[in-house]
């Protein structure tokens, strides 16, 4: 019996890449990682920041809120790599621990917004009609509030706190994800394999979870990365206004705002948290942008 050789068809990959073991999405991401400079740089920054936050206790011998009044406002030196602040706390240590706060809030907010976005977007796009309309109009309603405004609203009612902020951000960013996923679901649902799955008697839940979602989810990878960038900026902004993390928690925005009066006397206290915010945001945006550039041709093809 003659059987044709495996004939690869257009999924936007080089043939050698395509024939590797591993699912198409994994192969795709591997390819992107190897060929996109901005993904490489962005990922390097993100990984370094994650490691800095995780390994903070190993990287420094100081505690983040250890006050040392005999050592206030010291410029960077061998014993204090980035100097000390007005209470004699080691700036380097505080920067590292603040990375933890940003990462945790960012990841949690992005996780919340993605879970909400996936649930609502998937159901709306798959069900269509009335259900779709109700869900998406509700999402439009949330979309009317800018993320920062929604967070301010929550804080003004419930008082400041990181948990409230991350929930507020999670909800504020959910509609964008829901819309993105819904549009993908609507197009993926047209595929013949969805009809074939129905013809096999698969339930709606099974079709949504096993057939539609995995084929529709890749743009959310991009939006998750970009979302991290926005959440970090938002968190720093709230911190700067004194509405984010409360003292003595180390947080980049709060550190920045606490030191702005000392711009001329202790500039290191401004440069280091500011630099960290910039680096983190640039890292996530580079990663997200690179992923989008790399994944987009495929999205266009699959339509």
């Amino acid at each position, binding site marked *: 019996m003659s059987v044709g050789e495996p004939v690869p068809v257009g999924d936007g990959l080089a043939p050698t890449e395509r024939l590797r073991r591993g699912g198409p999405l994994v192969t795709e991401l591997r390819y992107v990682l190897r060929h996109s400079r901005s993904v490489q740089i962005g990922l390097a920054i993100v990984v370094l920041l994650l490691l800095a936050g995780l390994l903070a206790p190993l990287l420094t011998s100081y505690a983040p809120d250890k006050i040392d009044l005999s050592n206030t406002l010291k410029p960077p030196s061998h014993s204090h790599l980035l100097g000390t602040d007005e209470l004699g706390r080691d700036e380097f240590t505080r920067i590292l621990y603040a990375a933890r706060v940003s990462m945790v809030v960012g990841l949690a907010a992005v996780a919340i917004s993605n879970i909400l976005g996936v649930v609502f977007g998937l159901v709306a796009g798959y069900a269509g009609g009335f259900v779709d309309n109700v869900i998406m109009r509700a999402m439009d309603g949330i979309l009317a509030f800018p993320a920062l405004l929604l967070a301010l609203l929550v804080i003004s009612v419930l008082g400041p706190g990181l948990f409230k902020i991350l929930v507020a951000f999670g909800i504020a960013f959910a509609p964008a994800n829901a819309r993105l996923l819904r549009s993908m679901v609507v197009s993926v649902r047209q595929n013949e394999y969805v009809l074939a799955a129905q*013809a096999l008697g*698969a339930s709606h839940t099974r079709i949504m979870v*096993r057939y539609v979602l995995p084929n529709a989810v890749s743009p959310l990878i991009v939006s998750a990365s970009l979302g991290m960038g926005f959440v970090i900026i938002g968190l720093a902004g709230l911190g700067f206004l004194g509405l984010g993390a409360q003292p003595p928690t180390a947080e980049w925005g709060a550190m920045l705002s606490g030191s702005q009066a000392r711009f001329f006397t202790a500039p290191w206290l401004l440069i280091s948290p500011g630099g960290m915010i910039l680096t983190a945001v640039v890292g996530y945006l580079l990663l997200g942008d690179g992923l989008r550039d790399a994944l987009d041709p495929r999205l266009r093809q699959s339509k």
Partner: protein
Amino acid sequence: MTGTQTDTELLRLENLRTWFHTRSGVVRAVDGVDLSVAEGQTVCLVGESGCGKSITALSIMRLVDPPGRIEPDSRMFFRGRNMLSLSGDDFRHVRGSEIAMIFQEPMSSLNPLYPVGAQIAEAISAHHDVRRGKAMTRAIELLDMVGIPSPRSRAREYPHQMSGGMRQRVMIAMALSNEPKLLIADEPTTALDVTIQAQILDLLEQLRDSLQMAMLLITHDLGVVAEMADDVNVMYAGRIVEHGPVTDIFAHPQHPYTEALLHSMPVLGMTQDEPLEVIRGMVPNPLAWSEGCRFAPRCDHAFERCSEDPPLMPAGRQQSACWLCESGPRSSSGVEVTA
């Protein structure tokens, strides 16, 4: 053509109407189809593009999406039960386990993100409460049954690593995973090249016999009909215009449409100088079907009577919806079948 033919009726459609209620009007895609399939039999549904073959198949699966709707007076009996009165959830258990379907386009009918073995196992677990390992073993058996070499390693491959013919084999394995009584095949070989077509048709025929299932084969290829069918239904503009055993239909077609279809087939030994007969005109727009016989505007035999709607009339062993057959079979020129 040696299907284990019994007279036990498996599927019967009575006055099936599937209409699409669109903004520009009601599209009567399937408009009063009567059709029956006996156990173990291969029934072909033939017709031009746009005559309602695929919608008939999707209607049997109850997979017509809005604005399409199976009209309330339609009836569909499967093993004696009226399928149209079942709830959606009850019918879901029929779908895939008792009636299965394979599609035209094997390239896009498989989920690109999972290995084929896992997809077959999934089809099994949709209807049976089996453990993953057991479903996988069964999937490998099925791949072997549909003639995929080294099924164990092939089961771990993704659809994009397979050729069109192999993917269609996988689709067949999936459709047969729950041993359905009826397999609906909607142009299963149209997207494949000729040598693979023959292999797939042979495979279907062999599986039909070994699994003792009936098959409703939808095609526009009369060569396929001659090779596979026991019974033939010719469809035109949403209706069955002729029905009968395959040999009779080919030897003495009763409806002028069937006759014209047969003569538009190229015959082996024809030279390039001989013009191929064509049916003039096109399938009429389903939004505006004329009263009376819908084929009349394209028919060489049309006469006054054709302004009235012809019912299916017995004509020998066939039935034909043509006024020419009102007083029994008419003489017509058929083609020789060499199956």
